[in-house]
């Protein structure tokens, strides 16, 4: 249902500690079914923004409305509708592929977890490794398993923090496939990255964060990857 307003509405978010300001009056919106990519260099405040939306950070000023309710009173139901992918796998090295997924399925109270886990393991092509501990998996396999972990509970909003960092070709393809399908089924996405090609590929809208503030925002349809690239480099030079 593209066009349905206000899945996420962030207004004037300021996050500071002492004199340090991580975010300065950031306002961003996300419609249901929309894919927003936020670009910016390291330390621009991108990760802080995602942590606020996922309610890992609760101390800030301004307001965030997510799924129609105020995030400062976010409850477990709000958390359950969010999926988070970062460049770290969030996997336990000593647990098997199956046990890792089972742990996260139980955390999120997935219905009939056994079936769901089998389905996810098949999607990331790890059927042969079900009982193998993560420690013994190759780097690429771990990345695929990390994706299965993030999607295990069928989130409605996906937050991606530099998801392509360190991914190999195979895992990147699987992630691209996941994202295409996720958006096709009406899921909403906020991705932060500094990789223009990957970030642009799925985006309906792009924004640039610099020194904690939104300095540029445009619908992807009204620009092109090359035009945006020039614009982005110009911003970084300023």
């Amino acid at each position, binding site marked *: 249902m593209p066009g349905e307003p206000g899945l996420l509405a962030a207004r004037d978010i300021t996050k500071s500690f002492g004199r340090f300001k991580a975010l300065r009056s950031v306002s961003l919106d996300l419609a249901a079914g929309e894919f927003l990519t936020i670009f910016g260099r390291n330390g621009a405040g991108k990760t802080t923004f995602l942590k606020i939306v996922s309610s890992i950070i609760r101390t800030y000023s301004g307001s965030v409305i997510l799924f129609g309710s105020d995030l400062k009173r976010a409850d477990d139901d709000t*958390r359950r509708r969010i999926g988070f992918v970062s460049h770290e796998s969030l996997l*336990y090295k000593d647990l098997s592929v199956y046990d890792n997924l089972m742990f996260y399925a139980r955390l999120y*109270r997935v219905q009939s977890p056994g079936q769901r886990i089998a389905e996810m393991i098949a999607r990331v092509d790890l059927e042969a490794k079900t009982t193998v501990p993560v420690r013994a998996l190759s780097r690429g396999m771990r990345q695929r398993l990390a994706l299965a972990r993030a999607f295990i509970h069928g989130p409605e909003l996906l937050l991606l923090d530099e998801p392509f960092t360190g991914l190999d070709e195979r895992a990147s393809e699987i992630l691209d496939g996941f994202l295409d399908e996720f958006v096709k089924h009406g899921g909403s996405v906020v991705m932060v990255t500094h990789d223009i090609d990957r970030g642009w590929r799925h985006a309906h809208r792009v924004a640039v964060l610099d020194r904690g503030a939104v300095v540029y925002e445009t619908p992807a349809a009204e620009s092109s990857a090359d035009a945006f690239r020039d614009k982005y480099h110009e911003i970084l030079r300023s």
Partner: protein
Amino acid sequence: MTFAFSGAIGMWHAITTIFWKDLKIELRTKEAFSASFVFALMVLVIFNFTLNLTTEEATAMGAGFLWIAFAFGGVLALNRSFALERDENCLQGLQLAPIDRGGVYLGKCLANVVFMLITELILLPLFAVFFNVDITARLGYLVVVLVLGTIGFSAVGTLFSAIAAHTRMREVILPILLLPAAVPVLIAAVECTTYALGGDASPALWFRLLVVYDVIFLTVSFLTFGFILQE
């Protein structure tokens, strides 16, 4: 009322999920057990060599040796408790999860209590053999004291383990924070254990202190753990 009920169900779910996960990891690696057991055993052996006690002396002082061994071994198990959440940033997985943070604390704490108790219950007969001490005099009482003392020690220890996991030198910082804070529970546990091994002094006051310490620090840690998990 239904709200409170579903809250309790949610809490129980969080505790069992975390506990199940830590148990699985421990069954697979046995790292917490092997580290704390071997270290604690070493402490007992060193005591024997350095002090060379008679049976009477060992009976009188054994409680102290036991709890020093338990505490030092326990520190190793506790250190590992949150070190394994730090690898691959698993802690963030817990931050994101739709579960009660207090439940995460209680689940981790329960796992640590169980791991420490297993070590302690295996060390106990070895202690009896090494030092020729009769541990059967008040065995039931002894086990209750072990349980209460271990709960107190890991109530604070689990909270401090989460804190230490974020520091440089985390292996050093945990005992530095934990041991002075655990002074009351260690004194109380030693006094009660001395009685359990055949001492005369009534431990009623100490037993009460053990219970009070457990209740206070389970509560304080439960209430403050949410801040540790928040950013």
